[in-house]
Every structure is written in C-alpha cells, then in structure tokens.
C-alpha cells in the first residue's frame, strides 16, 4: 500500500465516526484523484477475503466488520464484558444515588480521590447523567439515570435500602455527607479538607 493509503487506513481504523472524503483530505493533506486512488487501495486491501470492509455510510467512509463475521462479533458483544463495576465505580454510584445531585468536587471530597475518570466512565456507560449546575459554585451536578435503576432493579431511588441510623430525607442526606467527611472516609487517610 502507498503511504497515503496506509494513512487513510489508519484514520478509518481509529475514527469512532465515519470520515467524509473532505476530512480525510484535510487530515492527509491531499485531495482529488490521489486521495481517491488511496481510498480505492484501502478498499482493495479490505476486499472480499478480509474480515473488514470499507463501507460508505451516511456520513462518510467507515471501516467495519463484514456481514460474514457477524456471528462471531455478536459473541464478543454478548460476552460478559468488563462491565463489572469496579469498587471505585460502585462507591461513586452509591454517593450519587444517596446524595445526588452532587458535583464532582464533592464526590472527590467524600471519596478522598479525584473522581473524574470514574464519573466520566459512569456517564459514558449511561449510569450517571448531568443534572444542571450547582447554584453557588457553578460545578456540574450529577444524578443517577433510569438505566442505573434498572441495572440495580430499583423502581425508584426511594427503594434504596436506608443507611443504618439515617432516614433518607432531605436533611438526612446532608447528615450522611457530614458523617462521611468527618470520618475521613473513605480513604483511610487524614480527613480531606472539609
């Protein structure tokens, strides 16, 4: 394959979305016949005999798996994935479920760990969603989603088991928050700066 075709192949491989010819041209700094020839080359490389193909979809060109390998791909999709929630993810979900809507800095304070990556992954997985902004700090607030409730078999958040010694009404959530902070939870270290 020509260097240009290799570049096109790599771009189609990496891009999560179809790339239109113009974008491919911009990225590779080429256009016209040269680019068309490179695309054709990638197409040939991923011809009938291959597991992948270059497809023209609505928004451009995409590398995708061929129909003939659909069955094995489905098996990969159905495989119990590493969708198991990590302890970090579970703790974060619990905090948001019991104390949300709540901002990332606050989650961080309660967990004693920067929660950005965990929150991002929970949002990506559809278990958390943004819920406006905090009035005073302007930080994005998060809440759990319907999907989260489905996943845990909850008809509503009220079905969450009560935290021992607390009743889950407005002010009590605040009391739990305090308790977690005062306990230097959950990090086994000195209490975060409350």
């Amino acid at each position, binding site marked *: 394959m020509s260097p240009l075709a290799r570049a096109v192949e*790599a771009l189609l*491989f*990496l891009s*999560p979305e*179809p790339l239109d010819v113009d974008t491919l041209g911009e990225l590779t700094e080429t256009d016209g016949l040269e680019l068309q020839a490179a695309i054709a080359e990638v197409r040939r490389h991923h011809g009938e005999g291959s597991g992948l193909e270059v*497809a023209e*979809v609505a928004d451009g060109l*995409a*590398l*995708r*798996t*061929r*129909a*003939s*390998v*659909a069955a094995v*791909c489905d098996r*990969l*999709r159905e495989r119990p*994935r590493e969708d198991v929630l990590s302890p970090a993810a579970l703790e974060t979900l619990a905090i948001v479920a019991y*104390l*949300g*809507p*709540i*901002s990332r*800095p*606050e989650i*961080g*304070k309660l967990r004693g760990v920067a929660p950005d990556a965990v929150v991002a992954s929970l949002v*990506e997985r559809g278990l958390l969603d943004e819920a406006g902004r*905090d*009035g*005073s*700090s302007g930080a994005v*607030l998060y*809440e759990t989603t319907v999907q989260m409730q489905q996943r845990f078999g909850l008809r509503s*958040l009220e079905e969450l088991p009560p935290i021992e010694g607390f009743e889950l009404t*407005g*002010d009590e*959530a*605040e009391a739990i*928050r305090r308790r977690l902070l005062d306990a230097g939870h959950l990090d086994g270290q*000195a209490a*975060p*700066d*409350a």
Partner: protein
Amino acid sequence: MAPPPPPRHAVSGATRVPDPLRQPIDLDLFEGPLDLLLTLVLREEVDLLELPVSGLVDGALGQREEARWDPATAAELVLLLAAVAELKGRIMLGEPGDEEPDQDALDARERLAARLIAYAPFARAAEWLGERAEKGRAHRYRRVPLDDAQAPPPEPGDPDDLHAALQMMVSREAPSLAHMARRKASLPEALRRLRDALGRGPEVSFDEHIGDAGASEEAVALMAALELSRAGEARLDQPRPLGDILIRGTRR
C-alpha cells in the same frame, strides 16, 4: 433529594476570615494550631528531624485544587513552609564547616540514605520506562467502545432467492382440501342413524352407538335419543349414574 450544600471550604464572606496560622494541623507528632507548632519548633520542643515536612505542607496548604487560601495568603504560607524545610535540611546536613554533627543529625542522615538507597531501584526502573515509552509512543489503539462500532450490514440477500421463492409458489400444485371436509353434526342425521340402529336390534348402547365420535356428535346423538324418548319411540335407561345409556325401541 436535598440540594448540595455550598462548598464548605469557601472563605465565608467578610464575616469570618480564617487565620492561616491558627489552622489546625494534625500529625502523629503534633496536633494543634500551626502557629503553636512553629513556636515549639523554634523553641526546639518539637524535634524538626522527626517532623514530616510533607505532612505539614499537606496540612497547611491542603491537597486539593480547591484553594483554601487567597493567592497572597497561600504565598505567605508557602514561604513559611519553605523556611521550615530549609531549616530541617540544615539540621540534617549540617552547616558547611561544622566540626561534629550531633548524633541525631547523623541518625537522620542515615535514615535518609537508607531511604534513597531503597528508592533508587524505582527511580532507575522509571528511567527504563521512560526509554521504553518510545516503543509505545508511535502506536495508536482504537478506543471505540464495542457498542459504538459501525454495525455490519445485514447478511446480504440474493435476488435468486426471491426468484426461487416465487417460482416455488407458482409451480406448487393446488393443495388437496379433502382432509378438511367439514364435519357437521345435524340432528336429523343423528335421528336417522339412531332409528336405523334401533331397527337392527332391540336395544342400543349409547356408548357403542357413538363410538369415538367427537364431542359435538356425542351431544347431538344424546339430543336425538332424548327426542326419540320424548316422541315415545324409545325408552332410555341408565342403570348407573354416569354409566352407559341403554336405548330401547318401543315400536317393535
């Protein structure tokens, strides 16, 4: 759910500006306000060699990005802490020209040396990793979540299949409907059959008469028997409850 409380670290307006020197410091060695700790250090009542400077910095400046102090206050604190660190460094290493470092200072240096020696392998491993990073640098991995991947097209259909399907329908013989003859249970027919049976013998067993006919035929046969009885053509006798019914003709 209650709205989240305002951030508690915020300097709470003009009402009460916290004093950075009065803030509580919580270390294994000491617990109390920062200014008291510094006083004790200067009076040599707290051994600076035992005082973890990193813990002191964490305690005084906090670890998170949400600044607890305005920049000017933070800068003063940083200066103060730097002075403490420098002081500790001098005690540990001695002033140039010092003749005899005291035993504490020697012990502290010994501990520092031990730590540096223990840590050295990891610093070297980090160097190795740094060089190694070149190896992975130039490669990119696809990070498209499985569910977001372009779905493959559905298994392509073959036009020949369409042709074959229609061809089969066209060439198929008209199906025989013989087996679907409607079974009608008619009362006149049942009456006729029962009269025929009574013509062949003095009595007819109802069970034998209906044989394995279906439920509707059985019901109509019973109606026919009752009809003959009503018309005086037959007498019905059922010796046992739910048992067979004997039908006897009266026209003999």
